[in-house]
C-alpha cells in the first residue's frame, strides 16, 4: 500500500507540472501499479490515457462502470479495446438490490422527473460502483482537463483525492486542449467512441446524453432538461448535501430489508 500525504502530492504536482502526460503516467505506474487503475467511461480522453499507459505497461488496469444504461457504442468500444490492445477492461456493475429498489420506488426513467432523482440514479448506478472499486486502490487515473469546467481550472496532474479515501488522483491530461486530445487520437490511430462522429461532445448514459448542434453549448449535451443543477454527476465532486440523501437512505434501507428477507 502506498501512501502520499498532502504535501508530498503537492510537491510532485509542481515537479510534474511541466512534464509530458507520458512522464506523469509513467510515474504513477512505477509508484502505484497494480493498485492504480484508469477509470474508463468511453471518453476520448480515457482512450488517450489508455493508449499512453498501455505503451508503458500493457497490463495496466482499466475499469469501467457499466451503469446498465449505456450506449451500445460504448460497449462496442470495450470490445474494440480488447481486440486492439489485448486489454480486458474490468467491468463493474451497480448493486442490483439498490437499483431494483430505486426503480420500484421512482420508476425506470426517474432522472427526467427531478434533479434529486437524477442525482440518485447517478449515485447508485455510477458513483457507488466507482467508490467500491477505488476502495481497493491507492490511486486512479482520470481524463479531467482544466479546460472542461471552471471548477477544474486548478486541478493538478497529481493530487490527493479527498472524496475517495485520500488516494492519489492522477490527471495526466490536465493541461491538454480538446485539439491536443484529438490530435493524439488521429496521429496514433487510437480507437474512439463512434458517438463522437454523431456530434456527441461527451459520453454518458443513454438517457442523459445527446448530441449537440454546431454552435450549441457543448454542455447542452448532458442533462439538458435541468435548469438548476450542477453539471457533474458526483464522480468528480463531493455530492453536496441535499434532500436526495434522505431519499437515498430510504432506498438503501429498503434494499437492506430485502437482502435480509432474501437470506
Amino acid at each position: 500500500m502506498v501512501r502520499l500525504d498532502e504535501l508530498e502530492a503537492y510537491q510532485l504536482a509542481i515537479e510534474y507540472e511541466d512534464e509530458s502526460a507520458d512522464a506523469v503516467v509513467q510515474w504513477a505506474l512505477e509508484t502505484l501499479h497494480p493498485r492504480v487503475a484508469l477509470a474508463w467511461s468511453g471518453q476520448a480522453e480515457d482512450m488517450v490515457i489508455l493508449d499512453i499507459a498501455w505503451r508503458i505497461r500493457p497490463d495496466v488496469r482499466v475499469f469501467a462502470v457499466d451503469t446498465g444504461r449505456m450506449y451500445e457504442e460504448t460497449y462496442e468500444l470495450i470490445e474494440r479495446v480488447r481486440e486492439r490492445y489485448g486489454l480486458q477492461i474490468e467491468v463493474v456493475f451497480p448493486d442490483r438490490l439498490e437499483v431494483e429498489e430505486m426503480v420500484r420506488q421512482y420508476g425506470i426513467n426517474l432522472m427526467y422527473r427531478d434533479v434529486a432523482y437524477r442525482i440518485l440514479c447517478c449515485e447508485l448506478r455510477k458513483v457507488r460502483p466507482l467508490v467500491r472499486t477505488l476502495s481497493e486502490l491507492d490511486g486512479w487515473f482520470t481524463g479531467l482537463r482544466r479546460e472542461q469546467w471552471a471548477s477544474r481550472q486548478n486541478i493538478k496532474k497529481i493530487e490527493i483525492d479527498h472524496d475517495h479515501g485520500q488516494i492519489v488522483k492522477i490527471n495526466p491530461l490536465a493541461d491538454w486542449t480538446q485539439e491536443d486530445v484529438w490530435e493524439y487520437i488521429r496521429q496514433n490511430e487510437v480507437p474512439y467512441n463512434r458517438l463522437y462522429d454523431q456530434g456527441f461532445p461527451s459520453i454518458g448514459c443513454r438517457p442523459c446524453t445527446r448530441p449537440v448542434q454546431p454552435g450549441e453549448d457543448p454542455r447542452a449535451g448532458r442533462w439538458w432538461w435541468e435548469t438548476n443543477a450542477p453539471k457533474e454527476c458526483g464522480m468528480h465532486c463531493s455530492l453536496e448535501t441535499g434532500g436526495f440523501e434522505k431519499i437515498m437512505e430510504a432506498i438503501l434501507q429498503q434494499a437492506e430489508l430485502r437482502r435480509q428477507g432474501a437470506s
Partner: protein
Amino acid sequence: MCQACGCQTEERPRAGPARGPVTWETVLQRNPRESMKAEKHPVDILDELPELIRKGYENIPEEDIVRLQWYGLYHDKPRIGYFMLRVKLPNGRLTPQQLRAIGLLARRFGNFAELSTRQDIQLHWVRLEDLPELFQVLRENGLTTNAGCGDTIRNITGCPVAGLDRDELFDSSEDLLSLVRFFYDTANRDYFNLPRKHKITLSACAYHCNYPEIHDIAFVGVRDGQQEGYTVWVGGGLSTNPRLARPLGIFVGRHQVVEVARAILDVWREQPENRLSFIKARIKFFVDRIGPEAYRRQIEERLGRPLPDWPEPPRPPRREFHTGVHPQKQPGLYYVGFPVVAGKTDGERLLAIADLAEREGLGVRISQRQNIILTNIRQERLEAVTGAMADLGFPLQVSGLRAASIACTSDPYCNFSLNSSKGLLEELLDHLEERLGPLDDIVISADGCPHACAHHWVGDIGVQASYLRRSDGSVEEALMIILGGGYGREARIGRVVARRVPVAETKRYLENLVRFYRQGNGRWGSFAQFANAYDDAQLLSIMETGTPDSAAAYAQSREIRERDAP
C-alpha cells in the same frame, strides 16, 4: 519503450501540448483561468450582480462565481451557495465606526467574524442576494473587498502600530496608503489581472512584525542618517514551495513606492511564461528562474534609471508581536495588543469593542497575529480599558504562546481544509499550558492544508493537518510537525520532522519537545535555535521519549508511521 511499435515514447508523434517558446496564444490555450479573465475581466462582474442574483446561484456559470473572487468572495464548505467575504483593512487599521459596521454585519451572518493572518476581517455564510446591501454598507463606511481574493494585489499589510510605536524607524502610514490608493482602485485594471495572487507588505517597524521575508514584495523601512526609505525584497511566499523573499539590494525613497511596485509587477505580469500554469505562477517561481540581480536590472530598465544600492538587508534585533501594554511615542498614551485566540470572534463582541473605543476615544488595529490592538489609551484609563476587554473575553494576562499563536480559517468553512485548525490550536494551547504552565517565547502555527495561511513553515512549531490511511481504507486525522522555521532575524523555512502523527500523540510529542527545551534554561537562545541545534532524528527522539539519543525510539516511530495501526 512503446509496446506497440518499439519506439521510445518520446519519439512518438506530438503527444499533448507543444513545448516551445511561450506566446500569449499558448497561455490562453493551456491556462483556462487566463482565458476566463481575457473573455471578461473579473472586475466587471460587479456590474452584473443584479442580473446574477435574479438568475439565482444555481444558474450562474461557474466562471462568474470564480470572477466574484475579485470582490473578496470564496465558497464556504460545501460549495452550495454560501460564501466567505473578506473585508480588507489596509495595515489593519479601522475606525470604531467601521468596526461597528462590520460587527453589525457579522451579527447578521451567523454572528461569526474572524481576524485573518493578513489584517482582514472575514465573514461567512453570505449569499449572493445579501451582497448588494453588504457592499453598500461597506462602501458607506469606507471599507472595501476589492481584490480580496483572485489574481490580484491582496490586502497590503504593515505594522499595525505604525505612527505609534516608539521603536519604529519612521511613520510609514502614508507610504502604505499611497500603495492602497493605487492598487485598490479598480480603474487600474491591469493590476487586477495578475498571473496569480500577490501579497505586498510595507513597514518601518524595527522588529519586522509584518514578516517581510514571506511576502511577494516587501518594502522594508530603512534609515541612513537623514535619509528615510525602503529597501525591497521580492519572491517570498509559503504554500508547498516555501521561499524567503530575496533582497533586490535597492533603496527606494518614500515617495517612490508606487512607481517601484508597479515596475516590479509589470516585469512579472507582462511575461507570458509566468501565466502558463496556475500552480507555478506566483512571483516566487519567476524570481527562482531569473534571480534577484536580473530582476533588478529589468526593473531599472522599466524605470529608465538605476536605483541606489542598499546592499545590507536589515535584520530586526528581536521578535515582537505588539501584544500587551506599550507606551506610544505620544507621551502619556499607550497601545495594548489584546490576544484573540485563533482570531475567532463574533459580531456582538466587535460591537462592544466599537462602543468601548468610541467611549474612550481609542483607535483600533488588527494585527497579523489575528489580534486586536487598541490605541491612544491614556495612562489613567489603562486599567478600565483592559478590564472592559477582559470582561468581553479578551484578558491580557495570557502567555506569549496563547497571545501570538495563529491558526488558519479551516473547518467548517474552508474547502481546502482537512481539519479544524482553530479548534486544534485551542486544544494544543490548553494541553501544553496544563502540563507545562505558561509559555512565553514560543508560537504555534496551526494549518489545515499545505497552503500555509498560518505560516506553518516559519512558526516555532508548525502543524499541518494530514491523515493516516490504513489498509482497510479507513482514515484517521493526523498532523505533520514542522520544526526549525523562524521569523525575522531567524528567518528560515522549517523542516518536516514528523508525518502522520495522530492528534493525541501530537500533544504528547509537543509536550515532550517543549519540556526538553525549557529544561535547557535558554542555553540555545530561542526555540528556533534549539530546533536547529538538533537533527530530525534527534527531535523525533525527544518528542517520542524525552531524550535526543534514542535511535531506537526514532526507528520505532518511523515504523509506526509506516505500518498500519491495529
